[in-house]
């Protein structure tokens, strides 16, 4: 009995010490982690809308489902387009992505980037790679659909083995385009 208590006590002390150490580390690194995240977001915003040099968040009371935020991009004080942050559902949970839209006449998609996803490494994750993403750049602002092989103008070629992820990313782009079409007039873009 005495032996068991001693063992349990030792485990308890070790577990307590580890928990305390983790709590301290978490508190110390929280700010740096948040800063890292903000820096990454700013960098990606510049990548999806390369023509803009400054961004300002769009003020809105509420965004539709799956739209998280939007930023208006400016080049030399002139509005050139928007970056829309969307969160469509993928195979393994939400996909955190940004869509850049140029507000020229006619408007077109300037770029798509995925910041965070929980798709399966190897396959689903292939759909977030350059080869798939680059299909979106330059597309007009129309509803896009996913097909397998030889896509037309309004279609996107799915990545073999990750059709669900391909569809989810395309869906995210459609959501962003829809938001832009409905709101661009109002916010003056």
């Amino acid at each position, binding site marked *: 009995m005495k*032996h068991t208590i001693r063992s*349990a006590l030792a485990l308890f002390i070790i577990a307590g010490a580890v928990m305390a150490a983790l709590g301290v*580390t978490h508190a110390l690194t929280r700010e740096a982690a948040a800063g890292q995240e903000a820096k990454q977001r700013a960098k990606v915003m510049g990548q999806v809308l390369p023509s803009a040099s400054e961004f300002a968040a769009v003020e809105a009371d509420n965004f539709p489902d799956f739209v998280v935020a939007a930023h208006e991009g400016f080049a030399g004080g002139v509005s050139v387009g928007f970056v829309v942050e969307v969160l469509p559902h993928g195979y393994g949970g939400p996909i955190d992505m940004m869509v850049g839209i140029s507000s020229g006449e006619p408007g077109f998609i300037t770029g798509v980037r995925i910041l965070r996803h929980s798709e399966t490494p190897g396959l689903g994750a292939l759909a977030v790679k350059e080869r798939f993403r680059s299909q979106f750049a330059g597309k007009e602002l129309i509803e896009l659909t996913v097909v397998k092989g030889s896509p037309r103008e309004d279609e996107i070629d799915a990545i073999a083995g990750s059709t669900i992820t391909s569809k989810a990313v395309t869906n995210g782009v459609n959501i962003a385009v829809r938001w832009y079409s409905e709101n661009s007039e109002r916010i003056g873009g």
Partner: protein
Amino acid sequence: MKKYALLIKRGLLDENPVFVQLIALCPLLAVTTSAVNAVMMGLSTAAVMLCACVAISLLRRLIPADVRIAAYVIIVSGFVTVLQLLLQAYAPPELFEALGIYIPLIVVNCILFARIESFASKNDAVASFFDALGMGLGFTLGLVVIGVIREFFGSGSVFGVEIIKDTSSHLLIMVMAPGAFFTLGVIIMLRKYFMLRKGVPHR
């Protein structure tokens, strides 16, 4: 001092965890699609191993034998979580994403438990430090060798520096899952061959 140099040499060469002991294959095969990932994963594992082995070696008289595995698991997972928090805060985000789930999975890395059970729990902290250093560097070496081979043949680059620009000559299979198995298979065959030439009996 010579004793410690021998410990490092043992981990790096004589008992290299990758090429000789053939353990801890999960991260070895999974994250070696590029040399940079391989270095990062190797150093992460080595860092956890150093901390955990020294800590356990210092505590070895206080940990009761019957609950020692549970105690080791708690200590190792603590260090792994600290590492994960640090990487999240200070490492480049792309790299953190690329290593993904394999960082928390260091907890169940076989080399770690092998070193703790067979060395750190029986030796003093300084010796455990050098043992963990040797094994950690040996593991990193293994990862980097495989990472460089796979990246070179699969993406035509080494450490991100492009060497073969013509994408049609890239062997995509090398950066996919089967390439990992083939690369390690060929390396082990070469090792067997050279050991035979040197007259060392193979295992």
